[in-house]
């Protein structure tokens, strides 16, 4: 656990499984690699980075993405190519989601927790620019963008110029949260040509 995202994904995947959505979580762990089926029915695949000496967060992330991609492709083939959508959280695994979309035609939702502009305000070093470019790629390639507040939606519009109708506010504090998530999924599931 690094931040609050792990708790959120745990709660979301459990709720999805309860609602009879076949859910796979692909995540990172340096030692506990492999697939585990949780009591909820959620299958969690943990992958490690084959490169043990990255020189920074970016190179760590970009090499780890290949393992995420490999694990996700493996799920896709084992599930008889019946994966309807990918929900990717923040910029870290956008590279994998982008390739999976272009290769296997699985649409993805980019769920935004935070932006580089907020994490490192007024920074425009090559490091920040690289992360921002990955965020931009995610917004460009995603079928939908999920945000947790109207404020974040406005920020993304302001910073990345993402069309407002591409974004959907899904607030975890609302009673209708999981219904809203499922509604969003339905608009994306079923291939790249769905509306």
């Amino acid at each position, binding site marked *: 656990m690094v931040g609050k995202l792990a708790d959120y994904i745990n709660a979301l995947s459990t709720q999805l499984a309860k609602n009879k959505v076949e859910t796979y979580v692909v995540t990172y762990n340096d030692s506990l690699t492999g697939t585990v089926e949780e009591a909820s029915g959620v299958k969690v695949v943990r992958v490690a980075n084959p490169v043990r000496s990255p020189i920074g967060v970016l190179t760590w992330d970009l090499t780890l993405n*290949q393992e995420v991609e490999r694990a996700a492709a493996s799920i896709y083939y084992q599930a008889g190519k019946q994966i309807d959508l990918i929900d990717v959280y923040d910029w870290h695994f956008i590279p994998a989601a982008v390739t999976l979309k272009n290769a296997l035609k699985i649409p993805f939702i980019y769920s935004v927790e935070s932006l580089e502009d907020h994490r490192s305000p007024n920074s425009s070093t090559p490091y920040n620019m690289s992360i921002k470019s990955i965020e931009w790629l995610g917004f460009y390639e995603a079928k939908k963008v999920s945000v947790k507040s109207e404020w974040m939606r406005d920020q993304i519009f302001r910073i990345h110029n993402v069309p407002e109708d591409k974004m959907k506010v899904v607030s975890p504090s609302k009673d209708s949260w999981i219904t809203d998530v499922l509604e969003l999924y339905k608009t994306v599931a079923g291939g790249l040509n769905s509306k």
Partner: protein
Amino acid sequence: MKHKLSVMMFSWEFPPRVIGGISPHVFFLSKSLAKIGVKVHVVTCDFPDAPPHEVIDGVEVYRIDSYKNPAPDFATWVYLMNLNMQREAAAIVNKLGDKIDVFHAHDWLVATAGIGLKHVFRKPLLVTMHSTEIGRRDGLHTDTEKMIHETEAWLTYEAWKVICCSDYMVSHVKWAFGLPDDKLVMIPNGVNTHVYASSEKEDCEAFRAKFALPEEKIVLYVGRLVYEKGIHVLINAVPKVLARVNAKFIIVGSGYMKEQLLNIVRSMRLEHKVLFMGFVDDETLPRLQKCAGVSVVPSLFEPFGIVALEAMAAKSPVVVSDTGGLSEIVDHDATGFKAYPNNPESLAWGITKILIDEKYRKYIRENAYRKVQEKYDWEKIAQQTKQVYKAVLGEYSKSFWA
């Protein structure tokens, strides 16, 4: 497989983008494969004024957006470029409609793209290891070098076969990454003799006048000005050669050692004898090779040694250091002179011998040219490569991925 054998190659350089030896290698290999009935798609980095897609002698060339935002460093740029390469190559594969049989990556610079596409499309991946980080740097000293080394190890692990261009490189790669023998294949690099045929009737007297005085013999170096290429060894050999022969040293290429080398030359007061040319165009280089009295390849680490082979094809006698792939290309006193590596005295001895002894020079250049034609012909190399593709596809057909 009902369609023509179809390969997608990944290379970070392809003409007109030429940085090192991978560009000409992929260029000639892909064209020669196309000639013998293999459909080749090359995915490479973009280049100013080069079209995003073109067909060159049957080879489909796709130039991708190579990531133009500022990146923190070269290695990070490589992984960011690979992200774009994967993305665009995935779309190309889909557009072609499941017609790619094999992915073929050239070096770590396209490692993550090759590995990623292998898994998403479940097609076999081959890699040609042109060099290694541990060899280039003579060890692993920095975090970046370790990271590149681990990426190379990962790439060779993921590849179904690893092609190396010399026996030396096979044993080096086997040692560096702990690979089993049956995963490694040796296919030599090739050289295009046609490039030099056009300069066959070269009027050397007129051409060489641009670079040297009539009484000066030309000693030619072509390569990057970096430590592993041993250019500093040649510079240190300059006064030893000049003590016996009047010569002009022409240095073609660029690199981080340039200033350091210029300082050494200045300190020896030999600026008038050593000419740093930087990069030269494709028309000038073969003419220079053709007119040189001797071509020198003083590398400390050399997986193959294409420059030596090109000089041999241009009928320029060669002096090489007895290391790596150079040891295999050159037979001492038969197709060239092998000097002790990192030894200016030995290098100077070889250069002087060739420049002074006319009979020896003629004997060596003729033998060398014959060897190039017999062993390093691109069509033969393409045939060998095609056989590797077929062998891998045979294994693949029995796997659960097929």
